[in-house]
């Protein structure tokens, strides 16, 4: 059933940049995008004249809601010197910048432009937690939002459904959290660059200083089991199953394949690109799978001629711990119902056969929603070019890496495969 899709002409990535992710009092999202853009310029090995950029595609979920300022693309375009060339916002909730990447690819593949900048930006930390929850809930399906579903609640439902179907439990979700947090200290841009053990020990230290009775946590899982340390947000999603509130920005420079070597000897090529749409629980085909991901994967695998086993590592959209498990199944890395076992067996660790979320994932790298898609591709860029430092995947022959981005409650999903030749 795979349709063999292809681009009108090849598209390459020749530069990438990412701001630090975190909660910044002294910087807004414009400043963070400029930070990402400056890093992108420095990343182009043979240099680039920014005047050659012909258009900007900017992913942004909801600066309108979070900061009461809409129409961010032309404002950011001016700050990076792209004005008066076109600046277009793409919106696909938490997949907004995967969509900007996709639009940029199509713009070049069509032959209309030779060089475009794609990226994303979001600023959330200046809102209260309740405001952020309300803003994100704007991207749920109306029937869900109306009866009181929150974002964590939607993934809570997926969790109880998965548990009942496959016999998994919260203990298995903890493996995802612990694994992602083990990668984060190796990523200098991560919002929470600490392992769960580090966080547990820090908490014990604080309790000691206050002179309160010391908790008897035997290990990380014991810590995560304790509701005083890891309270329920939307059962079975507890605090450590949920990604944090973040600010951040990321961007990539795309060019036509035939000019890529003018900019670097190590370009990455777009091998496969896919997108899909999904629907609410009332109409979804399954409560333990995302139709949109499956469609995106079919498009990307169909275009690239690759199979799931060819993807050597991937960033997947772990907004919640259960989500990572579901995505690794939907993308074909593991069979349905086996994703949680794969994590338990260590297959998705940095040194495992299928490293997942080497960046620390949304959980510990942070999730400034509109910036996430291209930040995932930034990680793929770093890994494939052997520039990921301490978190470099040990496999020395990396050729194919991929990023999966999810928007809303699965309404928009993308899957993008990059190749080093």
């Amino acid at each position, binding site marked *: 059933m795979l349709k063999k899709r292809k681009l009108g002409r090849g598209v390459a990535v020749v530069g990438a940049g990412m701001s630090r992710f975190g909660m910044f009092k002294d910087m807004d999202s414009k400043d963070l995008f400029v930070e990402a853009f400056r890093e992108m310029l420095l990343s182009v090995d043979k240099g680039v004249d920014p005047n050659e950029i012909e258009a900007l595609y900017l992913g942004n979920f909801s600066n309108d809601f979070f900061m009461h300022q809409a129409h961010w693309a032309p404002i950011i375009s001016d700050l990076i010197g792209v004005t008066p060339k076109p600046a277009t916002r793409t919106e696909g909730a938490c997949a907004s910048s995967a969509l900007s990447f996709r639009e940029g690819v199509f713009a070049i593949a069509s032959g209309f432009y030779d060089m475009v900048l794609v990226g994303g930006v979001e600023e959330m930390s200046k809102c209260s937690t309740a405001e952020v929850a309300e803003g994100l809930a704007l991207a749920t399906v109306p029937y869900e939002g*109306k*009866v009181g579903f*929150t974002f964590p609640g939607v993934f*809570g*439902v997926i969790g109880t459904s998965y548990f009942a179907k496959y016999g998994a439990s919260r203990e298995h979700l903890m493996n995802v959290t612990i694994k992602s947090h083990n990668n984060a200290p190796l990523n200098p841009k991560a919002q929470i660059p600490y392992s769960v053990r580090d966080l547990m020990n820090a908490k014990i230290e604080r309790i000691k200083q206050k002179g309160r009775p010391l908790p008897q946590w035997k290990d990380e899982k014991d810590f995560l089991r304790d509701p005083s340390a890891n309270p329920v947000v939307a059962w079975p999603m507890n605090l450590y199953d949920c990604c944090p509130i973040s600010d951040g920005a990321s961007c990539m420079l795309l060019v036509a394949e035939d000019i890529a070597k003018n900019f670097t000897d190590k370009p990455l090529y777009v091998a496969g690109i896919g997108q899909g749409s999904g629907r609410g629980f009332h*109409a979804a085909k399954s*409560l333990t799978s995302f139709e949109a991901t499956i469609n995106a994967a079919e498009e990307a695998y169909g275009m690239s001629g690759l199979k799931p086993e060819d993807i050597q590592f991937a960033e997947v959209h772990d907004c919640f711990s259960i989500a990572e498990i579901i995505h690794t199944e939907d993308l074909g890395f593991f069979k349905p119902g086996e994703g949680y076992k794969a994590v338990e067996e260590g297959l998705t660790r940095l040194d495992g056969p299928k490293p997942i979320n080497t960046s620390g994932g949304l959980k510990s790298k942070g999730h400034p929603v509109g910036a996430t898609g291209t930040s995932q591709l930034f990680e793929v860029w770093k890994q494939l070019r052997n520039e990921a430092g301490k978190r470099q995947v040990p496999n020395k022959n990396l050729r194919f890496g991929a990023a999966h981005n999810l928007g809303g409650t699965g309404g928009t999903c993308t899957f993008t495969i990059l190749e080093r030749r």
Partner: protein
Amino acid sequence: MEERNFSDISYEQYLNENKLMGSRCKKCGVLYTPPRALCIKCYSSEMEWVEMKGDGKLSAFTCIAVGPPFMIDEGYDRNHLYCVGVVELDEGTRVDARIEGVDTNKPDTIKVGMPVSVEFLHRGEGEELMTYLAFKPA
């Protein structure tokens, strides 16, 4: 049955009247809850209203500690969790709903697959009346 648009607005009006309604395609027979105006299987727009019996089983659920403002206004918070879920109706379709009559402090006691029956939670009056679709253990 009377003429009403096959819309979310009609669906909610029916909820106000203690009726859980779906739409069925007259051409191919597929049933939808909430109602659709266009059949996405055969693309016919000849639909008819069907009232659901209101019985089903719990497909999945969650107990929420940090809710949206309108749930906080109802008194729910970190110490008073509320349950929402997905119910598969006996007629074979699904709906999203509040789940009442369960112990949200002991989510392990709430069982996927348990039989549930419909309840209509009315809030406000007159023009302001709105109704939450809810289910409770049968």
